[in-house]
């Protein structure tokens, strides 16, 4: 340290050694700050590596998705319902008293547990959220209705499709 000080005073630049040192320190701090940005940018590949890729559209195939773990027999009669899956997500499928097949994305809009079909209502066991059979949140913490899907049977298998989608099997 002391040697550096000596050389700087011998340089005899205008303003003296202390000024020069302060100037150098300020210059280094500025450059260090700016270069940190660059160093950060060079870590971008690692960031991209870790970023999840966009999830594929669950209905990419013919506008519909096959239902897993629920067969037509599971929802054959009014009042029957069962939890299943489609394209990696959860679905609750049941048959209403009127005999209509209905399906909702089973992820509760409150905290994400899968809801359960309980005859007259859809119930979430985690925090007691209650939905009616139209998927409307009627009691408990859920802030929004469930997302309805269009369910239909074809060749002995169940499928779901996006509700706005006019294309149907």
């Amino acid at each position, binding site marked *: *340290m002391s040697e550096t000080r000596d050389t700087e005073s011998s340089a005899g630049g205008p303003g003296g050694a202390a000024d020069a040192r302060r100037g150098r320190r300020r210059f280094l701090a500025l450059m260090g700050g700016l270069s940190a940005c660059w160093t950060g940018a060079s870590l971008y*590949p*690692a960031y*991209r*590596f*870790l*970023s999840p*890729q966009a999830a594929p559209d669950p209905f990419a195939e013919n506008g519909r998705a096959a239902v897993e773990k629920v067969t037509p027999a599971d929802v054959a009669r009014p009042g029957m319902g069962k939890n299943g899956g489609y394209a990696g997500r959860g679905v609750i499928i049941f048959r209403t008293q009127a005999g209509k097949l209905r399906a909702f994305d089973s992820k509760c809009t409150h905290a994400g547990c899968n809801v359960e079909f309980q005859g007259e209502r859809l119930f979430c066991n985690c925090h007691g959220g209650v939905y009616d059979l139209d998927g409307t949140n009627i009691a408990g913490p859920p802030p929004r209705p469930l997302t309805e899907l269009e369910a239909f049977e074809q060749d002995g298998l169940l499928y779901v499709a996006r509700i706005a989608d006019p294309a149907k099997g």
Partner: protein
Amino acid sequence: MSMDQRFVPIPSDAEDALPPARSTAGAALRAALRRFPIWPVIAFLRGKRVPQHRATAWYAMGGLALVFLAIQIATGILLMVYYRPSQPWASVQRIVNEVPYGAFIRSVHHWSANLMALTLFAHMFSTFFMKAYRPPRELTWLTGCALLGVTLLFAFSGYLLPWDDLSFFATRVSLTEIEKGPGLGPWLADLVRGGPDVTIDTIGRFYVLHVTVLPLAVLAIIGAHLLCIQLQGVSEPDRFAALPEREKKYRAFFGDFMIAEIPIWLAASALVVALAAAVPRGLAPEADPFAAAPAGIKPEWYFLAPYQMLKLFPGHLELIGLGLMNGAMLGALAVPFIDRAVPAGARGRIMTALGAAGLAGFVVLTVWGRLS
């Protein structure tokens, strides 16, 4: 009790060395020193110095190996995010073909591993020829040998993980060789493989070895290795030690030596990135335990010497080859207990000659193995 009594006073030599108390850095450092009285350690480290002589450049090797290890840890952690030991080949294929920059990060991991092995060989032979292993530095030498061994185990276990046909058969061959070892050989091979053959169970074992056991081991041994170096200082070659005191030149370790090392570390990192950009690591077809081994299958360069050695001793003579290899390894460990005299005596000269022969043998066998 007043505030000041709870704090440790700052030593006067620390006051001289620290930046002014009114600057931010000075205030922060003083606050830290008042709480943690570690000035004696810092003072000790500040006094550390590196001898300057013609072979000084070789002192960079250990630091370089650490840089490569750091790259290995960083890229290894990233690769673990997508690697699935239950679907080894498919998950590596996904890394290579689908994950953004996956192929790049995997190539960096591959090249850095190779350069790390290369640097460690250079480090070992340079300290050997500078005779840095002599007392009191036996433990530095032994931990260094252990680090080389652990690195080769890293390479061996990591090589299998992609589960392509090259790595499958290479691992099968190596473990069959271990099996031939007298006594504990078959038991050891079965334990490592997790059964009589290389299967998905072997992947589980190698994966755990590669990402938990060996990393813990390498960090512990490096800690011991570095502690030895810090406590005992950098060894001085005989020719330097024999100089009159005023002709000996030193550089401060932390002020000058390490600052000048930083660009060399950075250049090593740049080299790894350049190699990964120019020569990306490929992925061979998935291992098929029933198919014929692929043509032209060879071990990685650091295993070519033992590979060639085994080819030289066919049939029952194979045990001689195995014996020679193990003898060489044990011999390396025994070096600091055989050659102890400072300055080097007759034994020292014999040891240097043996080392030169060993290095020449290693290089010749490696090149021979590559070309044959």
